[in-house]
């Protein structure tokens, strides 16, 4: 059998030996309406760190991210081969429970989407659907998560106000708090700062850096400077294939592959 190259860093090899990595992708191939979007992906994503997926538009980076929490399933004509192991459990196994898998992964989308309800209810929504009914505990969770994202002081007086009245930067932090309230293990960010102003972007970036001590974070970004600022590891995807994966400074400052070199220098976008 033909074996594909595995992309591992020294660190992930060590982690593999110590404990199961959070996310491990094996021989993943994704086809959408007959098009081969992701090709032979083999990858171990290191724990408690930020991994940025970079690459030109249409290279498959968002599809790769959505494959991790099975949001890709919902599209038309999607065919997935291979496996994605989260804590050793294959999320594409025939009997895998999709809601349980998604709960483990908070998603921060491109644009903030507050739910059509109050600030309090937005954060309490996740815990409520997962069965938390106790009001005191819900209050505690809401306060803790809003503090986590640095929003508590700004909104504590108006928790009952509509979430849509917040500024876009505040909304994105609220969405992060809402995601964290479900107690995920992994945070997935899909160009999460692309709609934000520079100051809000910085706030979110600092939050993510702060959060990596408790979570494994995977971000899709098209901003190289952002990838450089926040990430520990960089994964460069081109035409649906992994071209290079390694520590941020190695990939950005000393790329091994010719295509990576051109992309980093801005010759391809």
């Amino acid at each position: 059998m033909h074996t594909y190259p595995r992309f591992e860093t020294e660190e992930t090899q060590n982690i593999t030996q110590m404990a199961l990595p959070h996310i491990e992708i094996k021989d993943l191939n994704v086809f959408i309406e007959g098009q081969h979007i992701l090709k032979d992906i083999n990858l171990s994503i290191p724990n408690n760190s930020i991994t940025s997926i970079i690459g030109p538009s249409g290279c498959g980076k968002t599809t790769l991210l959505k494959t991790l929490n099975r949001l890709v399933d919902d599209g038309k004509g999607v065919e997935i081969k291979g496996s994605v192991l989260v804590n050793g459990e294959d999320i594409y196994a025939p009997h895998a429970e999709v809601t349980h898998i998604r709960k483990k992964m908070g998603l921060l989308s491109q644009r903030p989407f507050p739910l059509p309800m109050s600030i309090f209810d937005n954060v309490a929504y996740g815990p409520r659907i997962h069965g938390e009914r106790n009001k005191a505990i819900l209050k505690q969770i809401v306060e803790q998560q809003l503090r986590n994202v640095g929003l508590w002081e700004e909104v504590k007086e108006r928790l009952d106000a509509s979430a849509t009245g917040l500024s876009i930067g505040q909304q994105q932090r609220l969405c992060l708090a809402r995601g964290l309230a479900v107690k995920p293990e992994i945070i997935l960010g899909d160009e999460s700062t692309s709609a934000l102003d520079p100051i809000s972007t910085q706030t979110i970036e600092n939050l993510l850096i702060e959060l990596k001590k408790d979570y494994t974070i995977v971000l899709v970004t098209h901003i190289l400077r952002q990838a450089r600022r926040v990430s520990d590891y960089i994964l460069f995807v081109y035409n649906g294939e992994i071209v290079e994966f390694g520590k941020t400074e190695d990939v950005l400052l000393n790329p091994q592959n010719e295509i990576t070199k051109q992309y980093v220098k801005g010759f391809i976008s």
Partner: protein
Amino acid sequence: MSNIQRRLRKEKIAKIVMQLSGISITGSLFLIIGTILYKGLPYLSWEMISQTPKGGFYIGKEGGILNAILGSIYLATLSTLLATLIGIPIAIYLDVYVKSKSFFARCCKLLFDVLFGIPSIVYGAIAFSIMVWLGIRASLLGGVITITLLTIPIVVRTIDELLKTIPVDLKNVTFSMGTTRWETARMLLKYIKPGIFTAILLAFGRAIGDVAGVLLTTGFSDNLPKYLDEPTATLPLAIFFQLSSPVPEVQGRAYASALVLTFIILVIVICTHILASKQKKHKI
């Protein structure tokens, strides 16, 4: 003529065309309301809306159209309620449970578009033949079932269009919190709540104004509607019967009945708008 002049001229023409169509539509509306006010108001009396037809009502003697007013309200309310209860789950199923661009979903939507366009007399005829087969006579229930079938496509297509306006990312972030499809569907319904009132309003308007669908299935009765299995009068049919009369007095009452029908619709429209605007608090 320079380029900018040409473009400005096109802009001017487009504006005039739009204004003309606006004026003609509002004009027709005022013409309709004016006509029924002019012809109907003199015949509108307390007796007219508080009594049932007495003997000889249709040749110009005393009585009113309370039977038809109540009949129409019952019929339209019940069938709109049923159509909403059946239509919303169908729309949700086609948008949230089935992949929305799948062959099955597209076939269903096409089918609802066809049903939407079928004239109500066809619904009436089919319902009538089924009723004959089952041995059921023309009744309020028969009318409710027919009008429900008639209005379901309206509810489904309106809700479907509303669900299409929801950004895919909103669905995705909800799913990524580990919600089931049902929980996501409830969130989406909350999001489109003001629009749902529009769907209900459209269905109610079609239900209360329909003549052909009720002609064969609901029958007509001078008594107040009390039971589901009895023939029931409806306002559009009452208008039809009165207009066919040669007696000027009765024809005048037809316009008064039309006035009552318009008033009921006006009240429903206002209520819907108030309810919808109250729901807009959390709208994004």
